[in-house]
């Protein structure tokens, strides 16, 4: 469904993403992990058109996305959330989502937009009240709103950017279940960027690990957690030694 080849992004002399290639299949959840500054968000920004890639190609359902404007990519079937929720505070919760429902697809009527807004709000568990203001929402509520906005554009591929930062454990579990439900009920393919490995590993089919803008590992969650390069990046080289010693002792 999505095929990324040789993606490069440089900001001046700094290479944020260096020659990354990967594929996403229809219906899967791909986890994208890596430390701060490893290039995860930059990849998302390229996939959704916010940054034009320096080089490389992004093919989505057979169409080249590199160089397209964000609105056109969104209307073409890719939805995205932001790491830090960016709600429109001058609009109500419902209007936020209805806006995405209206402009997220070409040729929408107001009725159709409201319908997909209601669907998205119901799925994430936010009130359908037309007049409820954004200001009443807490951290978890804002993340739900962010997700509802992305869902209302009726994407085929959802780019979920670190949707769990700032949540407690219970809320994290809920959010992870939510992504599972989004795939199961709506058939949406998901790329999920996350810091917190534990929850992510439970949900995703495959994981891709980035470090300093390069792909260092890719595979099933069980393979990734045992990959020494990944452990080194995440926990430092001491941990690799500890793990090796533990393995030696049997």
């Amino acid at each position, binding site marked *: 469904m999505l095929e990324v080849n040789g993606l490069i992004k440089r900001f001046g002399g700094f290479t944020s993403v260096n020659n990354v290639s990967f594929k996403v299949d229809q219906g899967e959840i791909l986890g994208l992990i890596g430390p701060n500054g490893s290039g995860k968000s930059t990849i998302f920004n390229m996939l959704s058109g916010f940054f034009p890639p320096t080089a490389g190609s992004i093919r989505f359902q057979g169409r080249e996305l590199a160089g397209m404007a964000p609105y056109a990519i969104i209307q073409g079937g890719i939805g995205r959330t932001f790491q830090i929720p960016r709600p*429109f505070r001058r609009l109500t919760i419902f209007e936020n989502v209805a806006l995405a429902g209206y402009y997220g697809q070409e040729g929408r009527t107001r009725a159709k937009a409201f319908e997909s807004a209601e669907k998205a709000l119901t799925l994430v568990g936010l009130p359908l009240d037309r007049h409820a203001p954004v200001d009443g929402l807490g951290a978890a509520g804002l993340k739900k709103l962010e997700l509802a906005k992305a869902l209302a554009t009726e994407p085929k591929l959802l780019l979920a950017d670190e949707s769990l930062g700032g949540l407690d454990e219970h809320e994290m579990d809920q959010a992870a279940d939510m992504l599972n439900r989004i795939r199961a009920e709506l058939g949406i393919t998901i790329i999920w960027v996350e810091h917190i490995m534990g929850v992510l590993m439970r949900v995703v089919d495959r994981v891709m690990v980035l470090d300093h803008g390069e792909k260092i590992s890719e595979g099933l969650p069980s393979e990734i957690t045992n990959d020494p390069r990944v452990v080194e990046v995440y926990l430092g080289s001491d941990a690799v030694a500890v793990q090796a010693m533990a393995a030696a002792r049997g």
Partner: protein
Amino acid sequence: MSKLLPWIAGAALVALPFIYNSPYPLHIIVIILIWSFVYTSWSVMGRFGLVSLGHGGFLGVGAYVNALLWNNFGLTPWIGIPLAMLAAAGLAVLIAYPCSRFRITGHYFALVTMALSAIVLQVITATRDVTGGSLGYTPQRVPGGSSLFAFQFTDKETWYWIALAIWGGGLFVRWYVDRSMMRYALEAISEDEDAASAAGVHVTAEKLKITALSAAMTALGGALYCQYQMFISPDTVSGISASLQMVFASVVGGIYVLLGPTVGAVITIMLAEVLRIGFGTAAVGWDNFVYGILLVLFIIYLPQGIVGSLMAKLRGARVGS
């Protein structure tokens, strides 16, 4: 009851000249209606944080293009006015497109558009052979004074109904934008352009649409003013001062409420008239001085404007009771 109120008020306004048609007050009311329409046109985009100081330019294009076409080619204002509106919309797109592409927003947008006002004023003044320059310009009168073809009418009642209809039309356009999905997009754009495009909004297209609409409406106001006064000068219908006038009046009345710019027009025009009658030539320019002080006071103490603050009070009282 509150649903009926606008219709009752509208009917009363339409019937006014039958009951009361003293020429001077009627003249003042026509002037108020025309400027109310212009200020409303400004607020159509101004209320979304798109603070343009270029509307003096659009007003001037509306007034002069129509008058020039009539005097030089005998083109009826029925065609001339739409052409003038198109010209203003084209000029608006010419300015707004690069502004949007290069993300010139807020104060910088105000500055760029301010330059447009100044340029239009300069062009009108400099091409004095064609436009009459700073001495002003008069559309040729038709023999007999009134003609539908020439859009010239000598009686104040006709002008009152024309101005009333245009003003009502302006309010309708703003009301229509306010309840359309476009409002969602523009509110979103005014807060966060990137988040808006992540919702699928074509930011530049939406900005250009509202700017062209607002500019075309303003040009209509300029042409109407010209047809009514039968005299225009670059200082009254173009330039930075004309733009600032729109901002003053709209802020004083309240840009976020439908009738805000109208109330702003009533206040500023009455103020100018009172100063003119009360102090005569001794008070020339005082109105601008008072506007300046008012603007500062309003922005600090009453940013919602008079109507906006009143409505907030009323709403608060209703919720409180």
